[in-house]
């Protein structure tokens, strides 16, 4: 191998090493770790004396997961009793704005600390085992309540075990439920409800937390319009009723506040995570007979002002300081919430009202001072208007000076009280706005450093691939145009949200392009009126298969929830689905049987035994998993009894057994190539064996409704292999098919589309690495499948390349070029648009996905697994990659 190629190989290797370096440097600047003030807050000492007396001594905090505002307030709601309380003034309704990411853990953090959790919590939400994300050391209203009565406060918790993970050793009594199978609508809630009667009779607790998951499960499973939705709302309403009756009956509960709220909402498809109005608008109701004194009742049910905005809209973080005031404890240290104005009139004394708000403001001022230490907060510059101040810091400082001046002249008491209250509210709201917009938190130099490293990687790839035969032909031009369009697209939020359309569109064009190339070649050699070698039917089939995959799962934002094959067709024809699933497993079984009998030369008997031992448990596992995950797909097949039978099977050990068997056959196949000198297995046969085993693993990680996609993939692969594509065409096809399959599986660039259901196959405890690998494999199953096509097809096509050029080098060079360009484009887009309205909702999730694509998929799968296959399968025999 000449030095020229050695240099190019080294350049490409360095470029690939730089990819994760760039991605991580950028990430640390883009998702800064938000420091929090440790310790518990204590009351500021004020000249107005002791803090105002609390209005309530106990709180029942009832979270109904994904309780969107209209589920409680609209005309079609099942919360009839709650609505009657709103009408009578015993309940105060709000819409509590939840910031993106709208998933449970960051929302619970916001509700309990009053702060806005950083976007990084999304990742921590999936890796929630470790202590970095717990709130054990943070100031929350739970910690404050526990600290009451000289540290003898007692808390009780039933429901979602997220609370138990976030607050270890906090609860006196608890029973966690985990949302493992979203098909469970009843059991998960009954496990909470059965504790309610005896806890209502117990008088030892200060806070009772209930977190119901059933409504969220119904949403995930069947959307907000599911026929199960209203009955579930009625069930939740019944619990409100039960608690309300107890509050009136039991004397130990007569000064108790009931808070009913959602942690987030859901979109039209029943999912959440993003920032659609439905996802960010959960309901929030404060209930107590005492509230009658401040409310004469509100119209209920009622209409939304717009997009799920019912009644007054407040921030979710406002819950923490409001509870602090109502229950009488200091506002948690990291709180950015503002005391809800409506509750001020519970205190008759205007000084008390002012004090409550002043304590809230002082606590926020501490954060403002810590974040913007360079401003002058105590000066006495007399400015008429603070709005024209240039920087947000100066504006807040000016507003505080105004308050300071006002307090010194008039104080909280007396006629000036109303002005002071207004100033305090204005300051708190503005500070909340400014401090929660994270624009000031970007580390620009790191963002720049990340971009520079990524560009360096891009240049190195370009140099390594320069004048390379894969780029200097027409296919290369198509590929470069594709990259260019993709890069431009990353700057438009709609194209990021609807990225699937790009790939579907390009794929159509690509199939047309290669079919015309093929036809021209055939027509220029074949005689007229001869249809021999006509490949038009093949391309029409490819296009048709591509069209079917497009409609498999509706994804993106615009069409979320629209009918598609998975959500409409299979529901109607579950038998057909299972025919396809059985066919897929049967195909895998015959293949494995053939491989073991012939390639591994173990004989027909052993071959059949191996095939049955691998595929029958895998199929049974799929049935058992579906029986728990989506029983409605199996009931028409085997009836309720059959489903119950399969639900009883042990999922974890079955999955472990399948993984173990797959792994052992991989070891066997590889060993027979390296350690058995006689009758060595041929390298192509080894690749085929590994591909089949990988497919079986991916099937295990795929939902039943998506499994028939593998039948489509296998047909596409069969046709493409027969078409004798050039190496460049194979690389481009791999890229396009990988991306189209990713979106066809139902993925998108939104956090809400991550499929967690298969991430725990065979995992009983918590294991970050295992869950991470399984999560990645289940979401990237399509791209992983296609990444192997290169190895299945290329070695026969080597003669088309120049001498010395390793086909694997060209393949990696092309794909690295794509990865580096997309990385640079996304980074530049995120930096340039960092003040854009959609930065946290569209571009940040996209950056996380780009990291997963470039590090997880490109480096680990395409380069890592692909390189290993290349070496194991003897790519180095004739044309090495060294």
């Amino acid at each position, binding site marked *: 191998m000449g030095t020229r190629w050695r240099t190019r190989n080294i350049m490409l290797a360095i470029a690939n090493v730089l990819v994760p370096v760039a991605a991580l440097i950028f990430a640390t600047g883009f998702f800064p770790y938000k420091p929090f003030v440790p310790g518990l807050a204590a009351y500021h000492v004020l000249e107005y004396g002791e803090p105002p007396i609390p209005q309530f001594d106990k709180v029942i905090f009832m979270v109904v997961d994904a309780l969107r505002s209209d589920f409680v307030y609209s005309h079609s709601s099942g919360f009839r009793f709650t609505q009657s309380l709103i009408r009578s003034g015993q309940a105060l309704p709000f819409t509590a704005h939840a910031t993106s990411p709208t998933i449970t853990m960051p929302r619970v953090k916001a509700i309990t600390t009053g702060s806005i959790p950083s976007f990084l919590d999304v990742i921590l939400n999936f890796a929630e085992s470790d202590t970095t994300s717990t709130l054990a050391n943070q100031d929350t209203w739970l910690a404050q309540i526990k600290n009451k009565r000289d540290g003898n406060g007692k808390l009780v918790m039933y429901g979602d075990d997220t609370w138990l993970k976030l607050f270890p050793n906090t609860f006196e009594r608890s029973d966690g439920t985990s949302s493992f199978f979203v098909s469970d609508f009843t059991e998960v809630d009954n496990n909470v409800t059965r504790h309610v009667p005896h806890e209502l009779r117990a008088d030892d607790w200060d806070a009772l937390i209930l977190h119901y998951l059933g409504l969220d499960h119904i949403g995930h499973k069947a959307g907000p319009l599911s026929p199960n939705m209203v009955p579930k709302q009625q069930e939740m309403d019944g619990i409100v009723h039960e608690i309300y009756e107890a509050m009136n009956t039991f004397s130990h509960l007569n000064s108790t506040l009931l808070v009913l709220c959602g942690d987030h909402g859901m979109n039209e498809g029943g999912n959440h995570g993003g920032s659609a109005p439905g996802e960010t608008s959960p309901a929030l109701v404060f209930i107590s007979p005492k509230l009658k004194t401040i409310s004469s009742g509100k119209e209920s049910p009622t209409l939304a002002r717009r997009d799920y905005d019912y009644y007054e809209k407040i921030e979710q973080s406002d819950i923490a300081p409001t509870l602090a005031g109502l229950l009488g404890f200091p506002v948690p240290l990291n709180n950015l919430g503002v005391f809800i104005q409506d509750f001020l009139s519970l205190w008759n004394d205007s000084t008390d009202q002012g004090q409550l708000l002043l304590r809230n403001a002082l606590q926020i001022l501490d954060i403002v001072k810590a974040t913007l230490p360079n401003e002058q907060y105590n000066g006495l510059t007399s400015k008429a208007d603070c709005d024209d101040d240039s920087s947000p810091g100066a504006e807040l400082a000016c507003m505080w000076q105004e308050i300071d001046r006002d307090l010194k002249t008039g104080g909280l008491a007396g006629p000036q009280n109303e002005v002071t209250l207004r100033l305090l509210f204005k300051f708190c709201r503005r500070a909340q706005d400014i401090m929660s917009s994270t624009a000031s938190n970007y580390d620009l130099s790191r963002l720049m450093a990340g971009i520079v490293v990524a560009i360096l990687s891009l240049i190195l790839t370009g140099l390594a691939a320069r004048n390379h035969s894969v780029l200097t*032909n*027409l296919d290369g031009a198509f590929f470069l145009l594709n990259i260019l369009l993709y890069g431009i697209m990353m700057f*438009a*939020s*709609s*194209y990021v*949200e*609807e990225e699937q*359309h790009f790939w*579907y*569109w390009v794929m*159509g*064009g690509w199939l047309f*392009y290669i079919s*015309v*190339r093929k*036809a*021209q*070649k055939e*027509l*220029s050699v074949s*005689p*007229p*009126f001869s249809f021999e070698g*006509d490949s*038009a039917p093949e391309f*029409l089939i490819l*296009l*048709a298969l*591509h*069209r079917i995959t*497009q*409609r498999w799962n509706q994804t*993106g*934002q*615009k069409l979320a929830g629209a*009918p598609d094959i998975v959500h409409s067709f299979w529901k109607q024809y579950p038998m057909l689905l299972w025919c396809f699933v059985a066919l897929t497993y049967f195909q895998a079984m015959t293949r494995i049987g053939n491989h073991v009998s012939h390639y591994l030369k173990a004989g027909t008997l052993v071959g059949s035994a191996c095939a049955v031992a691998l595929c029958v448990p895998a199929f049974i596992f799929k049935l058992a998993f579906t029986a728990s995950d989506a029983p409605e797909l199996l009931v028409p097949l085997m009836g309720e009894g059959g489903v119950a039978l399969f639900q009883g099977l042990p999922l974890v050990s079955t999955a472990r057994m399948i993984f173990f068997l797959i792994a052992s056959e991989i070891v066997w196949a590889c060993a027979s190539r390296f350690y058995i000198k006689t009758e060595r297995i041929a390298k192509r046969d080894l690749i085929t064996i590994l591909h089949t085993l990988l497919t079986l693993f991916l099937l295990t990680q795929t939902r039943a409704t998506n499994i028939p996609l593998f039948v489509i993939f296998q047909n596409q692969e069969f046709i493409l292999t027969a078409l004798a594509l*050039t190496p460049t065409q194979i690389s481009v096809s791999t890229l396009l098919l990988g991306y189209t399959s990713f979106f066809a599986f139902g993925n998108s660039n939104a956090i809400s589309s991550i499929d967690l259901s298969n991430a725990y196959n065979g995992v009983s405890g918590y294991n970050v690495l295992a869950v991470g690998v399984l999560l990645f494999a289940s979401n990237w199953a399509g791209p992983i499948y296609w990444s192997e096509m290169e190895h299945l097809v290329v070695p026969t096509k080597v003669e088309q390349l120049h001498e010395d050029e390793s086909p694997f080098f060209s393949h990696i060079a092309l794909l690295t070029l794509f990865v580096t360009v997309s990385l640079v484009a996304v980074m530049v887009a995120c930096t340039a648009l960092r003040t854009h309205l959609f930065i946290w909702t569209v571009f940040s999730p996209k950056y996380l996905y780009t990291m997963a694509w470039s590090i997880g998929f490109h480096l680990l799968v395409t380069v890592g697994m692909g390189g290993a296959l290349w070496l194991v399968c003897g790519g180095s025999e004739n044309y090495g990659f060294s």
Partner: protein
Amino acid sequence: MAVAKTDAINVLNTDTAKLYTHIHPILVLSAYYFNFSSIVADPVSSLIKFLIPLNVLQIAYVVICLPATGTAQPPPVLKSSGMKPAVQKKSPKGKSVSLASRITPALLSLTLSLALGTPLLGTILILFGAPLTTHIHHTILCAAHISLLSALPLIYTHGIDTDKWRRIAALMIPLDEVFGAAVGTCIGAWIGAVPIPLDWDREWQKWPITIVTGAYVGWAVGKVVGGLLVKGKVIDLRP
């Protein structure tokens, strides 16, 4: 090679033809432009209505400007001068005969492009991602417009010879204003899909308005480029 090479189509050598071939795209595009707002407001009925002026204009175009299949004249460059056409033009008898002999194939091409081209192009549109379970009328009308723009002149000039059409499908005939317009229509329709995902929420983003508009613009561009800039060249994609 066994097949005689297809030559680029030349516009008939009459003054009317040479003039009208340039006026035609302007007429079609302005008609489309003036109907655009009603197409946006009510795609199905407006696209049906607009088929009539499009038909009339396309028939007029092929009859006035293009040689019907089998009557293609040898390229003028091969002639010593413009004598013979000039003689033809002066003969009233010859003109009327050629006009009648042109209208029949024109109507035949219209029928074929509507009856065969529309379902075929509709199927291709669906394979390329057009909605199947909804908007089926929209898609059929979109196919009809694309067919009238691209297929009608192609059928008129090239006939229905299977082998010829295989070469057309493989883009293997020389570019001229007819074939250029057809290629432009298809590329335009494909590019027309680009604005659909944007979150501008405009009425014109709805299916199939951008596709039809892309087809019309692509058709006009392709006709001009094919007829003037790259005439006679062949799109060679052979590996």
